[in-house]
């Protein structure tokens, strides 16, 4: 229902996102994670048809966001980062305005229904300018839901809400996710663990992870290994231990191994370390939380970036010498 196909966006020299690919199906609630400035909002703006990508194509419910932009926009509900409201309007008039443009049938019944969903029925006649931040956020959400769109794109939907409202809105999004396709960005990892069925991580404009929540919930045992004297080949040796699916060097002497969780694997890793005289200091098995995955991916990206930078500097140095 949402398809990003090789999206790249450049602002002059600066590349905001690079070759972003993913597909979100109906019935999925996809959490879009990434540090500030990683390109989440840019990606969302491209998907909504607000701005065209420099390269690549985006589709909403099968409609190209540029070439069939009206069809795509009609099937889309969007809550931007800055909630777009007219403070001089009453809540219901604002929603009526949106509904008229979107040609919603039985508009006033529908307005009542969404206001009830977001818990603002008693403020229907209030001026938007007089509402609190959390209430405005909910008016923005009501606007995105009004026409019962196939695809919902929400940029930080729970920001500014109080804890009780957050729970309500999360329930609402979970409910919506059963029928619709929801892509939401947030900084609250617990929120993603609760309501999302899939996680996409974007760092420095590139996708670093795209995995179903199931995988994070069940699988993902991580073995944290700390060694006194690792050798250069430690990483490759560890990654070849049976039962180890992935290995990363976190710092000079700390390694994170993704393992299947069996005791034999742990014993094997310990024996390998001892036999190689690496000086095993610590061996901890942890269940992977989204937070650790996120932080690990960040470190990975950072490491990749540093390597890239070093290579570039090296190239430059070589070029200068020549």
């Amino acid at each position, binding site marked *: 229902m949402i398809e990003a196909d090789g999206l790249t966006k450049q*602002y002059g020299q600066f590349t905001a996102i690079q070759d972003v690919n993913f597909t979100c199906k109906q019935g999925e609630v996809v959490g879009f994670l990434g540090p500030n400035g990683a390109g989440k909002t840019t990606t969302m703006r491209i998907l909504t*048809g*607000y701005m065209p990508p420099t390269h690549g194509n985006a589709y909403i419910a099968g409609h190209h966001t540029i070439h069939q932009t009206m069809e795509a926009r009609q099937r889309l509900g969007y809550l*931007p980062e800055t909630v*777009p*409201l*007219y403070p*001089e*309007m009453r809540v219901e008039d604002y929603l009526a305005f949106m509904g008229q*443009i979107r040609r919603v049938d039985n508009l006033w019944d529908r307005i009542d229904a969404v206001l009830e969903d977001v818990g603002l029925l008693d403020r229907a006649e209030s001026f938007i300018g007089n509402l609190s931040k959390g209430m405005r956020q909910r008016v923005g959400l009501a606007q995105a839901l009004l026409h019962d769109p196939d695809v919902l794109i929400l940029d930080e939907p729970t920001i500014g809400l109080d804890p009780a409202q957050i729970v309500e809105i999360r329930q609402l999004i979970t409910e919506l996710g059963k029928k619709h396709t929801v892509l939401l960005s947030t900084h609250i990892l617990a929120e993603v663990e609760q309501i999302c069925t899939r996680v996409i991580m974007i760092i420095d404009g590139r996708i670093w992870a795209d995995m179903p929540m199931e995988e994070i919930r069940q699988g993902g045992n991580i073995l944290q290994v700390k060694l006194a004297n690792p050798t250069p080949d430690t990483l490759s040796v560890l990654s070849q231990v049976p039962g180890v699916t992935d290995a990363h060097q976190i710092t000079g002497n700390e390694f994170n191994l993704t393992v299947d969780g069996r005791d034999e694997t742990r014993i094997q890793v310990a024996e390998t370390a001892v036999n190689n005289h690496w000086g095993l200091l610590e061996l901890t098995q942890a269940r992977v939380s989204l937070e650790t995955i996120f932080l690990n991916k960040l470190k990975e990206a950072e490491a990749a970036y540093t390597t890239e930078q070093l290579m570039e500097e090296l190239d430059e140095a070589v070029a200068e010498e020549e």
Partner: protein
Amino acid sequence: MRNAWIVARRELGAIFVQPIAYIFTIVVVGITGLIFAAQLANYAIQPGVVPVDLANVLGTFTFLYIFAAPAITMRLLSEEQRSGTMELLMTLPLRDGEVVLGKFMAAFIFYMVATALTLVYPFVLIQFGNPDIGPILTSYLGVLLWGAGLLAIGLLASALSDNQMVSFILGFGLILVLYLAFIPGRFFTASPTVALVFNELSFESHLNNFMRGLILAKDVVYYLGITAVFLFATTRVLESRRWR
């Protein structure tokens, strides 16, 4: 067109809570009222010496809209860009042209209301005298066309900046340049053709015929053309905003 009207209707609601548009309208209508009253008083004291002429009143009205038009249009697109609602409009099933047209319609309706307020003066003339109806009607046609042009220029300025004050100054500047376009022609005394070209370019020169009771195609085309060109340019500016 239906979408443009929805945008216009929402905007009219907003214009009527916006004090600046009100203030300018009151000031403009107030000043024209004073001029009209002064003419009437003068006529009462010396009947027949100086006739009461509606062209004076409407001339002042149109002149004052050089300032008032950009004040009406300055917030129309600037405010949407500043507050982030532009992102909403541009992701609704709404064409950029429909947004621009809707904004223009709202501003023009507001202008028509202000113009309608001045209908009091010809009404007074008809009640107490025997004015020539023809020039009054053509004058009002001219006033409306004039306003359409000014508002379209102001709208372009509003699209160019997300700061209302900048939009106002920009709009006022653009209007002034067009208004005073006849001046360079004054220096081409050797070539009447060049002078004529500058004169025809000038926003001001096309109003006189309407005031004298003449509807000339070139005048109508000029104002409609200016309106169309600037509305088109405004649409393109909005489109180009997407690429940034």
